[in-house]
C-alpha cells in the first residue's frame, strides 16, 4: 500500500500485551501496528489509549451498535435498489460504518454537519429522513433539506466544496459568540482522502485556522478516490499536515466505533469550547465500489479486500458487546427483526416515490420572481396543456 510518509498499515503486530507494561506514550501503537487511536482491536478486544478514553452507558453502547447495523442495512438496500433499476446510482458506505456512526454520536444536538455524498450513517444518526438520499439518487428531486433545521446539510457532490461551507458556517458561530457556553455550537464536515488534494480543501483549512472556526474536518480515508489510491493523492497524510494549518491532527482507526467516537468527541468539544478547528483522519476502507457505476476489481486485489474484511467494524464491536454481556442473542434477533421492518418500509417508500410534476422543475431556483424563468415555466405549462388529455 505505498511508500514513504503515507500511512501504510504494514505487517500486523500483536503488541497489546507488551504495551500494557510500558508507560503510556503520546503516540500509542495500535494492535495492528499503526500509530492511530484504537480502543477496540479487530478481534473485539477493548484496549486503552493514553489520550482518549470513553465513558458510555450500556444504552449508549447499544445505540452505537443499533445505528451501525441500520446504516449497513439501509446501505445494502441502496445497492440492491440500484441493481433493480430503482435508483440511478448509489454510493455505498460498506466498511465505513464505524467512522460515520462513531463520529455522529459524538455530536451535540446543536452541532452542524456538512457531509459529502456517502454519509448515510451520519444522516441516519442525525435523525434525517433516510428517504432523502434515495430520492436524490432516484432522480425524483435533488435531495432537498432544510439544513439549519435538520442540523445536516445537503449532500455535496463537487469535492470538497462542503468543507468551505462548513468553515463559513463555523465563522458565523464565532461572530455570534456561540462558543464556550452551554449552548455553544460546533461544525463537522466529512470528506474523503481524495478531497485532501483539492485546492479548496486547503483553502478551507487556511480559513478555519485564521478564523479559529469551530469546525472539525473529518477525513474518511477509505484508501481510494474512485480508483486512485492514497499514493496518488498525497505524500504526507492529512492528519500530519494539520500542524501546517495551525491545528491538531488526529489519527484514528476508522473501523473502531469507540475510537472514532472518542476522538470526535474530543475534537468537537474542543471546537465548541473555542479551541478552534482540527482534523481527524479516520483510517478505513471502502469495501464496496466507489459507486454502483464503479468496478473495483480493476484496481485492487482480493487479498487487500480480505485483509480489510478481517477488520470489519461491526463484527469486532459485536464480539466486544457480546463478551461484555451488553447485548445477547435475544437482543440481536430483536434488532434483526426491527431492522427488517425499517428496510422494508424504506424500500416501499422509495419505490412509491411519485414522479415529480413538470412544474416542480422550476421550484426553488429563485426567491424573488425572475421574469425570464417565469416566462419559460409558463411556456412549458402551455405546451404540455396543448396535449389532449394531458394531466400536466
Amino acid at each position, binding site marked *: 500500500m505505498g511508500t514513504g510518509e503515507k500511512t501504510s498499515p504494514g505487517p500486523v503486530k500483536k503488541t497489546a500485551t507488551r504495551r500494557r507494561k510500558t508507560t503510556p506514550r503520546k503516540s500509542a501503537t495500535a494492535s495492528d501496528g499503526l500509530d492511530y487511536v484504537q480502543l477496540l482491536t479487530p478481534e473485539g478486544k477493548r484496549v486503552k489509549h493514553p489520550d482518549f478514553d470513553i465513558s458510555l452507558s450500556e444504552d449508549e453502547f447499544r445505540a452505537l451498535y443499533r445505528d451501525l447495523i441500520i446504516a449497513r442495512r439501509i446501505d445494502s438496500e441502496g445497492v440492491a435498489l440500484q441493481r433493480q433499476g430503482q435508483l440511478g446510482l448509489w454510493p455505498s458506505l460498506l466498511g465505513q460504518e464505524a467512522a460515520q456512526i462513531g463520529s455522529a454520536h459524538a455530536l451535540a444536538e446543536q452541532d452542524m454537519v456538512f457531509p459529502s455524498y456517502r454519509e448515510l450513517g451520519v444522516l441516519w444518526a442525525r435523525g434525517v429522513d433516510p428517504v432523502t438520499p434515495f430520492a436524490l439518487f432516484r432522480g425524483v428531486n435533488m435531495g432537498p433539506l432544510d439544513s439549519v433545521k435538520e442540523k445536516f446539510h*445537503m449532500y455535496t457532490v463537487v469535492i470538497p466544496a462542503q468543507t468551505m461551507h462548513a468553515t463559513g458556517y463555523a465563522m*458565523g*458561530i464565532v461572530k455570534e459568540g456561540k462558543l464556550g457556553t452551554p449552548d455553544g455550537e460546533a461544525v463537522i464536515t466529512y470528506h474523503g482522502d481524495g478531497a485532501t488534494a483539492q485546492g479548496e480543501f486547503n483553502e478551507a483549512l*487556511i480559513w478555519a485556522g485564521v478564523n479559529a472556526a469551530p469546525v472539525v474536518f473529518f477525513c474518511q480515508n477509505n484508501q481510494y478516490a474512485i480508483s486512485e489510491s492514497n499514493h496518488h493523492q498525497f505524500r504526507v497524510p492529512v492528519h500530519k499536515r494539520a500542524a501546517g494549518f495551525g491545528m491538531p491532527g488526529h489519527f484514528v482507526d476508522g473501523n473502531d466505533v469507540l475510537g472514532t467516537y472518542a476522538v470526535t468527541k474530543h475534537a468537537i468539544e474542543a471546537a465548541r469550547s473555542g479551541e478552534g478547528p482540527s482534523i481527524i483522519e479516520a483510517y478505513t476502507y471502502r469495501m464496496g465500489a466507489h459507486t454502483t457505476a464503479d468496478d473495483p476489481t480493476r484496481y485492487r486485489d482480493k487479498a487487500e479486500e480480505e485483509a480489510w474484511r478481517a477488520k470489519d467494524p461491526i463484527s469486532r464491536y459485536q464480539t466486544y458487546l457480546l463478551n461484555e454481556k451488553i447485548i445477547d442473542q435475544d437482543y440481536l434477533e430483536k434488532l434483526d427483526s426491527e431492522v427488517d421492518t425499517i428496510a422494508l418500509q424504506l424500500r416501499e417508500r422509495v419505490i412509491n416515490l411519485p414522479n415529480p410534476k413538470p412544474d416542480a422543475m422550476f*421550484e426553488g431556483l429563485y426567491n424573488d420572481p425572475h421574469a425570464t424563468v417565469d416566462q419559460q415555466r409558463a411556456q412549458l405549462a402551455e405546451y404540455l396543456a396543448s396535449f389532449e388529455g394531458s394531466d400536466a
Partner: protein
Amino acid sequence: MSTKMPLVKALNEGLRRTLEDHPKSLIQGEDVGKLGGVFRVTDGLQKDFGEDRVVDSPLAEAGIVGTAIGLAIRGWRPVCEIQFDGFVYPAFNEIVSQLAKMPYRSSGLVSLPVVIRIPYGGGIGAIEHHCESPEAYFCHTAGLRVVAPSTPNDAYWMIQQAVSSDDPVIFMEPKVRYHTKGEVNFDAAPLPLHSAQVVREGTDGTLIAYGAMVQVALDAAEAAAEDGRSLEVIDMRSLSPIDWPTLEASARKTGRVVVVHEASRSFSVSSEVAARLSEECFYSLEAPVQRVTGFDIPFPASRHEDLFRPDLDRVLEAVDRSFDY
C-alpha cells in the same frame, strides 16, 4: 436630499447603509479593511463597523465565496469583494456549482443572500487580468442574478437592493466609472433592481448598453442628434433577468437597435439581446440588430484597449449600418 459624488463614494455610502440596516450583513474580501479596498469602495467601513463586519480575508477567492455560502446558510448576508474581474475564476466553482445551485437543490429551503461585487471592464490602463468582462459566464448560470449600475445613484441604491435580495447577486461595477461624479438622491424611491431604464428618449433607433458603455451610448446619441438622428438610449442595469418589456417596447418604437458592451462578442449579453429582439420584434425591425463589442480575444495590452473597447465612433458606425438597410 441629493448630493453629487463619485460612483465609488456612492457605493461606499450604499454599503454603509446596508451594514446599518442589516445587522447580519458583512463585507469580506482582500484588503477591504484597513486599506478600504484597492479602489477604496469600502473606505472607512471597518473603522466604523469593526473587523467582524468588514473582514480582511486570506488571499483566496474560492474561500471568500465558499465561506460566504456557509455564513449565508447560517443567516448572514455576506457581500464578497473580488478585487479584480480576472481574479474571480478561482471562485468560479463556488459561484456556479454551489452558490447558484444550492437554493435550487434545496427546493427553496435554503436561501443564499450573497452578493459578489466584481470591479469589471477596461479603460484604466491596467495589466492583464485586471480589465475583463466576465458577466456572460454568470448570466448563463441559472440561480444567479447579475446587475451592473452605471451611475452613482444606481450604485448607491442597487447595492442595497442586491444585499436585500434573498437570491445570490453578481454585482458588476464599471471600474472606469468609479471616479465619475453624479447626483445621488438619498430619498427618491429607486427603480426595481431588475428594471432597465430609458435614459434618453429617441425615435429613430435604440442604443442598448450597460455599465461603462451607457455613457458612450449617450455620447453617441448626442453626436447622432447633431446629424439629425434621434436615438433612444437604454441602460439595461440588470443583465439577469433582462427587462425585456422595456427593451422590446423601444425596439418596436424605433425599429433599429444597436447593442453596446465591452465584453467579447460571441455568446455574450448582446448575443442574447439580438436573438430575443429578433424573435419578439421581427416585424417591427427595419434592420438586423447591430452589435458593438469587444473582440473575441483576451482583453489586450493597455496600449490596445482603446481599439478593443467600443467608442463613440464605432457606435455611430454601427448606427450608420443600421440605417443602410
